[in-house]
């Protein structure tokens, strides 16, 4: 290990972390704005810091668009009283929010978010078993929620925790099975290779080659990130707030941020696995960049694809009602797992026929 590698990795980690945290903050804003527009409201449009006045022309527009709202939210989360109820199990109560937040961020380590800048590959860890790592980490995400439900020591969080453990474990299977055909096609578990295999034409994107796999992955992703229509662990209408009912201030904010960070990381996974990552199938944008500008352009492409998926996920939340719990389990075990298995068999069969 040389110093240069260490320095560059550290720089990449810092930049990715900063960008993702900013994205999380603004994903919350987008969520609030989109929900507001869908419900004939205007959403946050009042956060007006003292310096907004001095930004020429744009200042008041930014205020109206709520651009400063995340700052106000963050300030509020930090300054609020951090209340620990007397009946909780303290140790677990304290580590649960961190456990909910960390896995979502860790999965981002293997996502190639650009081709290269100079000689540096734009991925934090170019693992050969990238996707195995991802699934390993994603399955840790359930611990934060289960521990939170257990630690809170009251009934609604407990129910939320139980639901989420069942839900996340079942959908992990469907999710893991759904991507196997993709790797059968690519022949490698390295995510950079997966992107390489999707260059050439638009039809090379796995979303067109493997629509079934994509669909199963998409649905499982909703379940894994606890988003509507599968947000049963927190189902506000039945469980108050689910597993984070007893949390306040920054600990609650960590759960909240964790949810959005998880959304970002599954969207990044989807972009990488199914939408060709940082490539675009024209203008030669599907080859690793030779110049700095093309490298930056690749990052921008990745970012835009990510944003489109994020808005899609957010939109679905305001479009579909919540599933019932038994329907959810039924869907996971009796529909998606068989479909994903059949997809594997068919893909393997077709591949075997073609390579004979």
């Amino acid at each position, binding site marked *: 290990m040389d110093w240069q590698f260490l320095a560059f990795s550290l720089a990449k980690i810092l930049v990715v972390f900063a960008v993702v945290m900013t994205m999380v903050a603004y994903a919350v804003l987008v969520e609030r704005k*989109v929900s507001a*527009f*869908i419900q*004939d*409201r*205007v959403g946050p449009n009042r956060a007006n810091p003292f310096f907004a006045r001095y930004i020429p022309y744009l200042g008041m527009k930014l205020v109206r668009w709520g651009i400063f709202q995340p700052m106000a939210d963050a300030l509020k989360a930090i300054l609020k009283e951090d209340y620990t109820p007397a009946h909780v199990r303290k140790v677990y109560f304290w580590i649960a929010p961190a456990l909910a937040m960390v896995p979502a961020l860790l999965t981002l380590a293997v996502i190639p978010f650009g081709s290269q800048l100079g000689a540096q590959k734009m991925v934090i860890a170019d693992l050969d078993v990238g996707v195995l790592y991802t699934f390993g980490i994603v399955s840790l995400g359930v611990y934060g929620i289960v521990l939170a439900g257990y630690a809170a020591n009251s009934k609604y969080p407990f129910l939320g925790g139980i639901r989420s453990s069942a839900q996340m474990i079942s959908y992990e299977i469907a999710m893991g099975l759904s991507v196997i055909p993709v790797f059968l096609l690519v022949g490698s578990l390295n995510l950079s290779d997966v992107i390489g295999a999707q260059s050439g034409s638009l039809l090379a994107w796995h979303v067109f080659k493997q629509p079934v796999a994509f669909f199963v992955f998409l649905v499982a992703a909703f379940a894994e990130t606890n988003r509507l229509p599968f947000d049963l662990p927190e189902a506000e209408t039945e469980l108050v707030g689910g597993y984070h009912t007893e949390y306040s201030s920054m600990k609650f904010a960590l759960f909240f941020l964790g949810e959005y960070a998880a959304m970002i990381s599954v969207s990044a996974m989807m972009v990488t696995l199914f939408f060709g990552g940082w490539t675009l199938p024209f203008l030669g944008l599907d080859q690793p960049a030779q110049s700095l500008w093309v490298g930056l352009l690749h990052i921008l492409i990745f970012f835009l694809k990510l944003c489109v998926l994020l808005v899609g996920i957010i*939109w679905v939340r*305001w*479009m*579909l009602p919540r599933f019932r719990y038994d329907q959810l389990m039924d869907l996971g075990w009796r529909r998606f797992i068989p479909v994903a298995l059949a997809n594997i068999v068919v893909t393997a069969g077709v591949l075997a026929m073609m390579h004979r």
Partner: protein
Amino acid sequence: MIVERKPLNLAERLYIPAVANGFKVTWRHFKRTLFEGRTAAGDTAGGFHPEVPWRVGEGYRGAPYLVRDQDGATKCVSCQLCEFVCPPKAIRITPPGPDGAPADRRNAEKMPREFEINMLRCIFCGYCQEVCPEEAIFLQRDYSLSGTSRAEMIYDKEKLLALGGAHAGLRKWKQKEDEARAQEAFPPAAS
């Protein structure tokens, strides 16, 4: 009536119409708000809350205030039923005691020396209005109460009476009073 549940066809079981219609509806609203600048508040009230206060209808159950009768006298007789019934214990009444000031209403035995409602505790349930035998306390149309300290949110008798205004309701002892007056007159008026 029994609603017959038709079996779903394949497309319906795959949620295709649900997703399509859901998108249609959400997009319609999204478009209308974002591009045409129309909102529910704008359409119904003509603006947003702090600038354009929301006008509530008659009979709205907002903050409970004490009322005066048509002669400007305090209606409350300090029976303390409302204090007793109030679920969150928001009301505190100090009765006049044996040597307090007499009621400013004739034929009423007493009136409270102090009457406090803690608006931070009040849940606007309306039990006080319901239980009051004198129609002296009513939930009125104020819904947006704010203050800069907790002490400021405890409304005292004076404030409650000032905010409550006069009430055109029943004057419970009016007839008794009129009768008493009539009996004192001599010779009695022919009926």
